[in-house]
């Protein structure tokens, strides 16, 4: 029994050669990502009326992203786990930096310029938070997670960036960040009654807090919820988005034939409303197909988590998967007028260098988890 266990460990160790690692990379998944990026290319081609405006850049960025992703994929997951703290610290540091020196865009401090790149630290932070939490919980046993004191530091790890993002102000992203933290806590084994208690506390506190606010503060919260534009303007955007979606019908108006998009009734069609563009031109069939592809991407994150043999990888995969899910869900729910939040791009499809970079960074980490799914982290501790 023990001998076979040892042998298996040896075999696994042999698998750490670079070639072996490349063999372990889930190429089917790389293909899936490429397919999604190709959908993005087609949609951006239409949005820009040709490849020049957005689509060509999108392809280029995806190419760079692939290199970045594959490079990260072969880095030993244990090294990544060791560097997780550093990554988390960098994330928080950038959030502080953006508050001090960030560019103000649409009423909130969002991004900083790093060379030619505009980086939104809040996007990076979501990944770094998943990384940091996975590192914290990697060796915690079930009993240990039950200890309230043990949960205090990771709670602070969540609340610190959430607070900084709130200060930008950007309530939407802050909530999403908190949800990623919550998902990792949940998967790590935090007791359910504690969860229930927390939700109840937040649920009762929020309305009470809201009623005690001044009108201008309430208005500010409305802006938090929909930070991209004023309520009137946002209403117009959503209405036009619904018209575009609905008028697409079952089969769509055809490639480059979307009137709402091409006549500019649809705002931000290359970023936040790119899904609308697809749905208008390719109809319900196209929209559901893209939704299906994106669901497969999320599903893959979970598959990686289930196949991983160490807690760090499992939690990281769930965190990254939840991050991916929230991007997709919030974006599509927004363009279909289901929720009032704005300003969330659709990963791999929307135009934007910073979003592409962070997305591919996340997938790189996910792949490293998969490539090193059998890595030995040592036993859980009480």
């Amino acid at each position, binding site marked *: 029994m*023990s001998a076979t266990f040892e042998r298996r460990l040896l075999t696994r160790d042999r698998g750490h050669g670079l070639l072996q690692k490349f063999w372990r990379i889930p190429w089917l998944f790389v293909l899936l990502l490429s397919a999604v990026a190709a959908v993005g290319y087609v949609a951006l081609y239409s949005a820009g009326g040709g490849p020049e405006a957005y689509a060509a850049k999108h392809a280029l960025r995806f190419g760079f992203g692939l290199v970045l992703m594959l490079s990260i994929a072969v880095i030993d997951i244990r090294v990544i786990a060791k560097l997780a703290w550093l990554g988390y610290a960098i994330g928080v540091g950038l959030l502080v930096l953006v508050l001090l020196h960030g560019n103000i865009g649409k009423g909130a401090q969002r991004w900083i310029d790093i060379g030619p790149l505009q980086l939104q630290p809040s996007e990076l932070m979501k990944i770094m938070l998943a990384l940091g939490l996975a590192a914290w919980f990697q060796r*915690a*046993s*079930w009993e240990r*997670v039950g200890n309230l004191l043990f949960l205090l530091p990771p709670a602070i790890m969540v609340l610190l960036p959430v607070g900084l993002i709130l200060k930008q102000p950007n309530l939407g992203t802050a909530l999403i960040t908190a949800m990623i933290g919550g*998902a990792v806590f*949940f*998967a*790590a*084994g935090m007791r359910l009654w504690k969860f229930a208690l927390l939700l109840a506390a937040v649920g009762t506190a929020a309305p009470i807090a809201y009623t005690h606010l001044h009108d201008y503060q309430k208005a500010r919260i409305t802006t938090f919820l929909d930070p991209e534009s004023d309520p009137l303007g946002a209403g117009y955007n959503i209405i*036009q988005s*619904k*018209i*575009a*979606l*609905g*008028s*697409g*019908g*079952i089969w769509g108006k055809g490639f480059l034939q979307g*009137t*709402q998009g*091409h*006549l*500019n*009734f649809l705002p931000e069609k290359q970023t936040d409303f790119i899904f609308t563009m697809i*749905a208008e031109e390719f*109809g*319900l069939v196209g*929209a*559901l197909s893209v*939704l299906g592809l*994106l*669901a497969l991407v*999320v*599903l893959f994150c*979970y598959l990686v*988590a*289930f196949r991983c043999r160490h*807690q760090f990888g*499992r*939690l990281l995969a*769930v965190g990254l*998967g*939840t991050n991916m*899910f929230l991007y*997709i*869900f919030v974006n*599509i*729910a927004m363009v*279909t007028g*289901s929720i009032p939040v704005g300003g969330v791009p659709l990963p791999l499809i929307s135009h934007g260098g910073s979003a592409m970079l962070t997305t591919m960074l996340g997938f790189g980490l996910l792949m490293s988890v998969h490539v090193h799914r059998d890595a030995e982290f040592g*036993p*859980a501790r009480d």
Partner: protein
Amino acid sequence: MSLGRGVRREEEQRRSVFTRRALALGMGQLALFGFLGTRLWRLQSEEGDRYRTLAEENRVSARLIPPPRGQVLDRNGRVIAGNRLNWRALLVAEQTQDVGATLETFSRIVPLQDHERARIERDVRRRRRFVPVTVREFLAWEEMARIEVNAPDLPGIIIDVGQTRLYPENEHLAHMVGYVAPPAERDMDGDPLLELPGIRVGRAGIEKHHDLALRGRAGAVQLEVNAVGRVIRELDRREGIPGQDVQLSVDAELQKALRGRIEEGTSIVVLDARNGEVLAMASQPSFDPNIFNAGVSAQQWREWTRNRATPLINKATNGLYAPGSTFKMIVALAGLEAKAVTPADRVYCPGYLDLGDTRFHCWQKHGHGSVDMRAGIKVSCDVYFYEVAKRVGIDRIAAMASRFGLGVELDIELPGTKKGLVPTRGWRQAQGKPWNLGDTIVHGIGQGFYQVTPLQLATMAARLATGRAVQPHLTRSIGGRPVRGTKPEDWPSLGIPERDLRLMREGMWAVVNEPGGTALASRLPGSLGVMAGKTGSVQVRRISREQRERGFKTESLPREWRPHALFVAFAPYDNPVYAVSVVVEHGMSGSGAAAPLARDTLVEVFNRFRTPPAAPGQRVAEGPRP
């Protein structure tokens, strides 16, 4: 080993917890994706039709295309109301860096007033930046050339052409053609065309009467517009129906020639006696209808409305005069019809008629002696017609007058034409006043309450000449289709015995062609033809007995108190084609002022139409004048 087992147990435990929790998370997320799917289904499948409609409404914008307004032509096809290109300078704000600088440069080429600048800048602010704003309309050729030459210094300025109404004959036909102006609230008849900027509707004359035919129907174009309203492309175009051309019976050359002969306060009407076509209708003074096009200034309007000569009013249709002696044929016919008098009955004229203690004078102070009907007309003996009127009575005279078109509404296509007044006993009594025999006597010579227009007098002359109830009219054809009433047979007979009519015509022939006739001096040169007519002079002020006894001379009166001079005529005598009426306000006497003008008119008419105007019923081809 126990440690290893413990480790493995720990590992199994947290792994199984993780698996359950991650499965729950994953299932939850999958369910939310399902929710998105149903949401898409609802939007795109169930409500798809509704949103498709909304998307179409978003993108399609319909605009009207104004049709060209129909032309008004004279009988020879000459354009008397046409369209001309209106060259405009427009400014597209988005094509220039600096609107102010462009306008500054523009006003150095074509000077702009301060108020124009203010209007342009206001329009630029109000409209979206790609919508052209009018800088200046009605550009002269030279101005346009200068703008074109300086085009590189005028970013955003474009030259554009629209259409505007043009009356090439200016004031000569203004009273008939009328004019156009932007529609007012009351003109809105549901035609969407009237809501277009720059559209004009007929406000007077033929332009108003035939407005619907001239206007045409608006075309429509469906445009695809983007979110800010910029036109992307044309989707569909439905051409409008151009306005129809209206051809009039009037002869522009004749009209101009006649107008050249007359002074303020004079009007001349020339009809084709056979069918009532108006060949000319001059009223002096007139106005230039082109002025209405660009908008009438307050000053111009004051000038027109305060002018006592009333240039805006067509005296031929709206000037009201007593017919005076031109009315005598009506009295005679009424007498014959009532058998109150025979043509041979003689009346002795001592120069007056006494009724009770009132004395009614003849214009010939010393009297005409014994006068029969033919002579009564020839010398215009007042006493003869006092006597006839006395025997016939006012109501029968009035009935006869109405049959000849006096005091009734004529079918002329000029809106606002006056009906005039032919009094009856009942009319007077409706005013609460009695009708006395003295009133009948005064009305026997066309004086008193009568109010008739020169057009009605010409109609009377035409009906005397033909015996038919011809109606004066201006329209020959609309859109190439002839209108009714071009043949004499189209008009019913007046029902007056030819014998009686012939007697009237003979009397009128004698007026002009027999020694002793009141208009002998105005007979036509023998080569042209023979005119028959009747003079008339009507007092504007009553002449008192004292004035008469002091040897009163009308020449001593100030101009506006002098009598009006009238003449009605037809020619040629043996085969009447033309009917003419002439009214010279304050012209003193019909024989002195009106008859010579009638003669000159007919000379002009005969010279223009060496052969009579196109045979009735035959449409004159557009082209060379006859």
